[in-house]
């Protein structure tokens, strides 16, 4: 019996082609199913979210005209006096912006300090009291899941209007967020230095200070800087609920249609956020570069 090699090759090719088509088909079916699921969710969400295409199409040109409206009138002939008029309230705004930055700074630093103290209690590799670890973990979870502005609403009610509730709200949220990130860093350290120190008779605090801290400090500082960036953004809206900073002025200018004020304040906010991002990024790169990461 002879075997026709050409025939075998053809048969194999047919088989391969069939498998390929089947593989493509199953992938397509998966993709189509996923798309259908997303579409169903989107329709349900559109219904619940009161999406109105007509309203949107009508609103779209208004979006453009809104941005035209908030643009200041700057004529080349009277440029500087126009700018002066645009930023007529500059001293107040810059002061509020500084207040915003201070709210973010004090809140971040307070939150980072508390988060620093707590993170060692949730790291399974250096702390073995499971009950305490569990309680601390759940507390941190609570602190970071409740949005900072909700804390701010509560504190404004309890303490009164002003930047202090804003600071506390940001601090609490920061404790939750940084506590978790710090603990993740601590859980990934090399335990050999800790064992080395323990063998010299060092107590727990000494072990943390001389074996853990040198390993984690640069990462900690980097996370704090990132959190500061986030908190600066968060602090710009604290004023919406009366918790200090530039938000109060922004809210009233948007609500009362003081168009050129809106663009003036927004521009200052964007510039501030941009500069802070740039500075912290520089700092972080230098920090991580120095320690050889």
């Amino acid at each position, binding site marked *: 019996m002879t075997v026709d090699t050409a025939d075998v090759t053809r048969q194999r090719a047919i088989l391969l082609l069939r498998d390929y088509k089947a593989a493509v088909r199953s992938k397509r079916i998966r993709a189509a199913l996923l798309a259908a699921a997303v579409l169903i969710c989107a329709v349900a969400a559109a219904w619940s979210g009161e999406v109105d295409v007509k309203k949107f199409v009508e609103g779209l040109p208004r979006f453009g005209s809104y941005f035209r409206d908030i643009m200041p009138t700057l004529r080349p002939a009277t440029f500087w006096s126009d700018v002066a008029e645009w930023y007529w309230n500059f001293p107040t705004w810059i002061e509020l912006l500084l207040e915003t930055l201070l709210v973010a700074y004090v809140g971040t630093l307070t939150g980072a300090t508390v988060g620093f103290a707590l993170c060692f209690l949730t790291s399974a590799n250096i702390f073995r009291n499971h009950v305490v670890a569990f309680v601390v973990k759940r507390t941190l979870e609570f602190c970071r899941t409740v949005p900072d502005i*909700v804390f701010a609403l509560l*504190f404004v009610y309890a303490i009164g209007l002003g930047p202090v509730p804003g600071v506390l709200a940001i601090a609490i949220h920061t404790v939750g967020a940084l506590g978790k990130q710090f603990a993740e860093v601590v859980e990934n350290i090399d335990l050999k230095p800790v064992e080395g120190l323990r063998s010299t008779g060092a107590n727990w605090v000494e072990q943390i200070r001389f074996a853990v801290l040198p390993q984690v400090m640069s990462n900690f500082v980097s996370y704090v800087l990132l959190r500061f960036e986030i908190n600066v953004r968060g602090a710009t809206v604290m004023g919406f609920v009366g918790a200090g900073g530039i938000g109060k002025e922004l809210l009233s200018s948007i609500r009362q249609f003081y168009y050129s004020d809106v663009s003036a304040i927004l521009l200052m906010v964007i510039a501030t956020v941009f500069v802070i991002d740039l500075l912290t990024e520089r700092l972080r790169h230098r920090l991580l570069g120095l320690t050889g990461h």
Partner: protein
Amino acid sequence: MRLQNIDGPERERILASYPKVFAPDYGRRAATILATAGIVGLFVFGLVWLGFSPSALLRGVSRLGIILQAMFPPTAGQQLPVYITALGQTLSIAFLGTMLAAALAFPLAFFAAKNVAGMWVVRFLTKRSFDVMRGIDTLIWALIFINVVGLGPFSGILAVAMSDLGSFGKLFSEAIETASRKQVEGVLSTGASKVQEVRFAIIPQVLPIFLSQVLYYFESNVRSATVIGIVGAGGIGLYLSNEISQQSWDHVSFIILMILGTVAAIDFVSARVRRSIIGMPVRA
């Protein structure tokens, strides 16, 4: 054995053999002290400027204690259906906002990516627009969109979409820029056009990363959509701020618990979906 416990010639010998370890580094110490002093100084300045006073803080804490007591037991009263509808609306805002942002960012990100968009000007403008969108908080966008499309969840959707468009644009274009050249060269060698290059060489590489980032942002948008109602852009936030201003603390705590439960559920589901779509957890 501790150094303090060793004395006499043995101690002298150890100190002399390892001078670098035991000699104080004054320059470094001075830098550390200065930096610490600067940080603490600014902190104290901040406390004073912002008007922290221990007595006001103490009064606040005692009032907070009263509020906390009034929060228990949490109850929704007759409002449960209303709250559930509002929470559904919050989820819708987060979902549609994220989807809209992803759909818009997907094509735009290619204009910001160095390896796809040739023109320097196009790239620069796209990138800076993303920065501006990201620099403005979702709540500010919500206020602006309320002026454009009126009060209600629709302005919330647009606000979430707008600030996410900035984030997605940045993240997506970074993913495109780090895509491997090898597939691109392979596809180009068959004589493919620019569109075919993007479709067959770049998209297959970046799509899983995009999906994982979209899911991650959906989770975080659920959190921000819970508060968007505070300024009137729909969702549970409206009820939360109303109940706080009416001092119905048991309702407030109920709403907060509802938010916590929803966020936990969404995180759980989204983590599973992410794993099933991508196959393996991808580090974004």
